[in-house]
């Protein structure tokens, strides 16, 4: 392994990264303290938009966390060597991002001092409570998975643990999608399409994050990524992006077919202001079509930098998609009295405004910084970086 070389080169970069991520994480914690001590009145969230920007960040991180583990699964479960050597980094990123996402989710609670209550009082009809098991199980299984990949003596078990991790990550993202799928009250949610859609979103967002992190680490080591590997990964990303587009299409087409959903669809697709813009420009154009064009372009698709641009666009598109689903889904008023025009002092029947506040952004970025800190420290102390030298003499994609 190139572990020694990696450590030497990274020495200066390591402390710089630690400083930058540490500062952002500290700002996030400060924001959480500010929100906690003053109450959520200092945020943009209201009794109409009850989940805001922190949830967009948290759900992105949690969804991408399970997706980023796919590289390891492809290696262990499906036996593809190129991915196998990326298994450890993929497992590490999965743990780090889940930790980052959960940090945001926990710190946004109205009573985050009652975390122990959340862990000891479990209502098993709640998908949130089931997710507590899915999250803790994910941490444990992936940790064991990394161990089986890292320790030569444990290699024999890697395939089995990898298989368990693969099943678990599907359950975990199903659980995340089910948070919304189980909501009958609001028109954006309450559909069984959401859990599988979240799974395919996790494939796409997770791989985009992996490609970014991998490139950054190769650069710090002055190493070149094998063009064959690069090509395989970018093609895989393109397939995932297209699959998310397909699910998005089915989601909206199904809604458009139901007369009771037409006002909601009109809001998202035509006259929803920021939500319409984020949908068409953010998710569809910049987050899906443009990266697809880059990835399939005969010249650009081969260039590492363009693949990075495509990955960044996919991540941006992912945030746009979650913002439209989460915030747009709440901005559209509840249909309490279908067939009536409704008004009240509680903003019934009105499109609910939302302006995310600075503390919410800081908390969200703080979660990303927590994930980045965990990754930075872990790659410093253990050999997580993909080592393609083991592939020499073999066909990369066997």
């Amino acid at each position, binding site marked *: 392994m190139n572990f020694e070389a990696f450590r030497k080169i990274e020495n200066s970069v390591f402390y710089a990264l630690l400083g930058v991520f540490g500062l952002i994480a500290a700002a996030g914690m400060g924001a959480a303290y500010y929100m906690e001590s003053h109450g959520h009145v200092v945020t943009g969230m209201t*009794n109409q938009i009850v989940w805001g920007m922190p949830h967009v960040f948290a759900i992105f991180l949690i969804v991408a966390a399970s997706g980023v583990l796919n590289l390891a699964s492809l290696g262990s479960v499906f036996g593809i060597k190129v991915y196998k050597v990326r298994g450890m980094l993929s497992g590490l990123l999965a743990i780090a991002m889940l930790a980052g996402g959960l940090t945001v989710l926990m710190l946004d609670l*109205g009573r985050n001092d009652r975390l122990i209550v*959340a862990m000891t009082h479990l209502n098993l009809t*709640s998908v949130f*409570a089931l997710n507590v098991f899915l999250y803790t199980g994910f941490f444990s299984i992936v940790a064991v998975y990394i161990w089986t990949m890292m320790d030569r003596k444990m290699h024999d078990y890697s395939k089995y643990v990898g298989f368990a991790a693969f099943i678990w990550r599907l359950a975990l993202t199903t659980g995340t999608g089910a948070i919304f799928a189980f909501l009958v*009250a609001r028109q954006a949610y309450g559909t069984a399409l959401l859990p599988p859609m979240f799974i395919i979103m996790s494939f796409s967002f997770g791989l985009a994050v992996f490609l970014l992190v991998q490139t950054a680490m190769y650069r710090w080591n002055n190493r070149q990524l094998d063009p064959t590997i690069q090509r395989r990964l970018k093609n895989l990303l393109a397939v995932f992006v297209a699959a998310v587009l397909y699910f998005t299409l089915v989601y909206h087409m199904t809604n458009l077919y139901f007369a009771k959903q037409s006002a909601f669809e009109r809001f998202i697709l035509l006259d929803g202001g920021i939500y319409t813009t984020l949908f068409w420009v953010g998710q569809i154009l910049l987050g899906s079509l443009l990266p697809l064009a880059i990835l399939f372009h005969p010249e650009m698709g081969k260039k590492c930098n363009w693949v990075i641009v495509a990955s960044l666009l996919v991540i941006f598109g992912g945030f746009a998609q979650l913002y439209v689903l989460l915030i747009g889904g709440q901005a559209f008023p509840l249909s309490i009295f279908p067939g009536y025009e409704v008004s009240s002092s509680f903003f019934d029947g009105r499109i609910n405004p939302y302006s995310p506040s600075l503390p919410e952004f800081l908390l969200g970025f703080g979660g990303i910084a927590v994930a980045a800190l965990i990754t930075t420290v872990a790659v410093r102390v253990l050999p997580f970086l993909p080592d393609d030298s083991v592939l020499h003499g073999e066909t990369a994609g066997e």
Partner: protein
Amino acid sequence: MSKMDNSRRLFIGAGAAATAGLVIAPGVTLLDLAHARPADEAASSAKRWGMLIDSSKCATGCNDCVAACGKENGVASTGHPETDPQWIRKVELKEIKTGTSHSLPMMCQHCAEPPCVDVCPTGASFKRADGIVLVDRHICIGCRYCMMACPYKARSFVHEEHEDQNPDVPRGKGCVESCTLCVHRIDRDQQPACVESCKEGAMLFGDLNDPNSEISKRIATYATTQVRADLGLNTGVRYQGI
């Protein structure tokens, strides 16, 4: 001698009976009058508390029920309308096709199958045996999942500190809350504050499980509506006139 003994015995006996009667009777009478449940007795599923609201008697602009609820439960405006909790609100309805308008109070519908209870991760959202849906503020973590799940927008999150609380109704920043059907009054055999305040008699409170209660008789006689009946939540609050 024996005659004297007998009369003394009779006198003491009569005195004791009279004293016992004086001591016990008021309690028995009060208990009988009030039907109040002793404090150490759990709520029973033999009852299901509910409400019938007649929108034809509910006047646009009248806010008496909202004011009474605010006073009873210490729910007051802080000047931040978008984050202020509202336990009960007046909703104005206009039918899109005909223009027919209605005015009615909207609050927690105290569902028999409450989505807020299903989704609550800690069990803080719960339904009491007598059908009242409540939040246990000791274990509410403020995740707001119940607010996402409620089809009636009945729940509010407490966004800031609140002073001047009613000792019967403790409230806390960072928790979710909603109409309790004035559970503290019901347990003292009083009506919910909103019902008591309604001069038009548009709100009727009672036991839906008792076929002889006024509310049950009215529901058996007139066409009543459950809001979003399509969701099959079997609401404890019913409406007449919409």
